Structure formats: C-alpha cells, structure tokens
C-alpha cells in the first residue's frame, strides 16, 4: 500500500526531471566520426578518382546494393564507367569501406537521406564523388603501388626499389 503511494509520488516527481528527448531537427545530435552514414567516393590528393573499379566493394556488399562497370583509360588506369549505390537497400555495414584497397569508398557522418520517392535513393557516380580525399588525406594508391601507369614505371615510387630481374642469375 505504502509502496504504491511512494511509486505514484516518484513518478510525479519525474515531471521536473530533465527530459531525455533530443528535439532532433532543432537540436542536432553529436555524431561520432566513425559513424557509418552516407557512402561517398573520394579523390586522391591530385584530384584524380581513387576508385580503380576492382569490384571488391560490390562483392563484399551483403545486400548487393553496389553496381559498377570497370573501364580503362589509354594509360592502363582503371576507373569505374558508372558507379551506382542503391541506398534503399544499403544497410550501412561498412564492409565496402573495409574491402576497398584504395580508400576510395568511405562512409561519412551524414544520415539525413530521406526521400519522398524510392528511386531518388539510387545514387550515381556524380552524386557519390566528392572533391576531397575524405578520411585519408595524402594517400594516393598509385604513388605507393608497384603498378606502371602514365609518368611512372615500376620501381619509381616512394620507398620502392627497382624490380628484381627474375631472369638474371645473380642472387
């Protein structure tokens, strides 16, 4: 009996407590930097696309929401001809970011992606590409990779020794 009355009084006192509600559109919540939100495609510090269209993100994606088509420019540099993410299917697991060998695909802190029409959630390459390097400033895949592209042969990279002549007899 007494406990019931005390419970009623306790609940009444909650009237004067601070509310836990965050009044969202007016009051933005703090988003941690590792938040897995809207997916973007970043560029390397020179302004070139980082994506080399290796399809690893599309393979890693558990819901299969990433579609792309690889192409090659005249110097042998691969790039995606189109790159499409269907955000109505995306579960924001971040596996694509983990799979990406060139740090091209990244998840950002933006989560405000509501749309009135479902097809507006299909993002094309021009919607995904941003102008900067995203979370990995200064990283350029082709500057550290042992791959010959325009203006750089094998072994000419930073911290890279010339390739071993596999047909020679010297140790």
């Amino acid at each position, binding site marked *: 009996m007494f406990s*019931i009355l005390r*419970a*009623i009084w*306790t*609940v*009444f006192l*909650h*009237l004067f*407590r*601070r*509310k*836990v*509600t965050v*009044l969202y559109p007016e009051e933005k919540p703090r988003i941690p930097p590792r938040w897995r939100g809207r997916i973007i495609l970043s560029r390397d510090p020179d302004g070139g696309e980082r994506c080399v269209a290796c399809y690893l993100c599309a393979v890693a994606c558990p819901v299969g929401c990433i579609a792309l088509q690889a192409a090659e420019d005249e110097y042998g540099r691969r790039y995606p001809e189109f790159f499409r993410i269907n955000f109505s299917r995306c579960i924001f697991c971040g596996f694509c970011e983990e799979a990406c060998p060139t740090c091209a695909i990244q998840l950002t802190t933006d989560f405000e992606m509501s749309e009135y029409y479902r097809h507006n959630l299909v993002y094309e390459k021009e919607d995904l590409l941003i102008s900067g390097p995203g979370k990995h400033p200064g990283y350029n895949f082709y500057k550290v990779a042992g791959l010959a592209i325009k203006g750089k042969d094998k072994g000419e990279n930073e911290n890279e020794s010339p390739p071993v002549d596999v047909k020679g007899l010297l140790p």
Partner: protein
Amino acid sequence: MSETARYLLIVFGVLAVMMSIAAGLIWVERRLLGFWQDRYGPNRVGPFGILQPLADMIKVLTKEDWVPPFADRPVFILAPAIIVITVLLAFAVVPFAPGISVADLNVGLLYFLALSSLGVYSVALGGWASDNKYALIGALRASAQMISYEVFMGLSLMGVAMLAGSFNLREIVEAQRRLWFVAPQFLGFVVFFIAGVAETHRLPFDLPEAESELVAGFHSEYSGMKFGLFFVGEYLGITLISALIATLFFGGWLGPLLPPVVWFFIKTFFFIGLFILLRATLPRPRYDQLIRFGWKVMLPLALLNLLVTGGIILAAG
C-alpha cells in the same frame, strides 16, 4: 432570455464542453505520460502540440471504417455508440455551478450509477459482436469486472447520501458548505476512486483491453471512428468520474474567490491528472487478483464504511 432558450444553451454548452474536454484529454494524457516518462510527448502540432487532437481526429475520420464480414453487423455498429451516449447522459445530473446543470434530478446519484452500469453493455456487446476470441475474452473480463466493482461503487456512495440526506447532487454539494465530505468519508472516497478507475477500465484496471495479453481486448476488430468512439467514451468516462469525485467528496463548485465553474473544473482536472498519474505508475494486476481485490478487500471496506457512517449518524441523532 426565456427558460427554454436557457435550457437549450445549457444542454448544448455541456455537450460541447464535454466533447472538447474528451478530445483535449487525448493531448493532455499523452503529454503528461510523456513528462512522467522523461519525454516531451506530442509537441509539434500547434503551440505546445495543442492541436494534436485535431490531427488525430482528421486521421481517425479518414481511416477505413471496416466492419469484419464475420461480425454481427448491427450490434457491432451500435456498441461504440452506447458508451458515449450513456456517459453523456450521465453528465445531465452533474451540477457544474449553481443553476448550471441539465437536470436537477432528486435521484441524481442513482441515475448516475444506473447509466454508468449501462456503459458495460457497450464493451460486452462490442466484444461479443466482433466474433473474435480476444475480443470475447476482453468483453467477458469487462462484464465480470464491472459487476464486481459496480457493487461497492454504489455502496461507497451511500455514506455521502446519508450525510447529505439526499440523492440530489446539487443538495449534496450544498451540504458540503461547512466541510468537504472527503474528511468524514475518506474511506468512501478511496473506494469510490478505485471503483471509478475500474469502471472506466483505465490502467491499472484495464483488463478488458490488456494489450499485452489480448491484442486490444474488446475493440480488437474496431477501426476508424468506431474505435475513436470507444476512446471518446473512455475519456468522457474519466471526466465523468473525476467530476463526480469533485462533486461528491470535494465540494463541487464550492470555493473562495474564483467563480464556481472554475472551481469545479480545477477540481475535476486535478482528478483527471490523478487518473493519468495512476496509469503512468502502476502495472496491471492479474485478472484473478483484480476480482479477489474487489470482493475481498473493497467490498468489506465499503460495507464497513457504510456501517460506521450509519452508526455515527444514529448516535448523533
């Protein structure tokens, strides 16, 4: 102003005020529950969310009004109307202020008890006509609960009737000029309050609905405005019980300084708030606990109250 025009004004005034209070309680209840759970509750529609009932009303009126093909159609349609009609009729005897009451019946208290008992038909018929086992269980629970709580609800008021020497609600209020009946009839007040909670099947005594066990209880099959009418009936019921507690135990319109109507509504809204506070606090008892509590605790308490009050009145001569 002629007498007829005055009566019409009172009748339609009471109707309009009660319907708007019932609608406003949707907002009041959700807002207060929010506050008591450290939330804000609905605060978007209009200033402080006060237009929430309007939005709810537009929504509930534009919902599909569906009658299940297996339901007993006429009864199914009639049931939600009964609860609203009986509760609104019961408001006829409530004295809002001196001279402001629809009917000055000399059996007002009995009339209220009769109509609040008729309200159970709504729940019982609604559950029966739905032809749904959960609705039927809800209706059966409602019937059993109403029968057991009706008994001592009436008995708890007899002390008041004895002290005032009248069943007329206006005279009962007048008899409290010196001392509110809550003081000599505290037990009666507690018993009546608990019975009132059970009568309007509000939490913690909402066994007929019991969402966690019975889907939605007696109104599982209802949709659209028929469901809305059950809700309006429930809120009207809360208002009626609160108004009667204020009238019978807390001196109705009596009070200093402020006009009588204001005092009446202050007291009524206090008890409405108490109803909502009970809902925010207490968990639902098991069904057998509810019935046992009714017959084994509340009924003897009501009888004891009756006996002691009668003895004192006799001794005082």
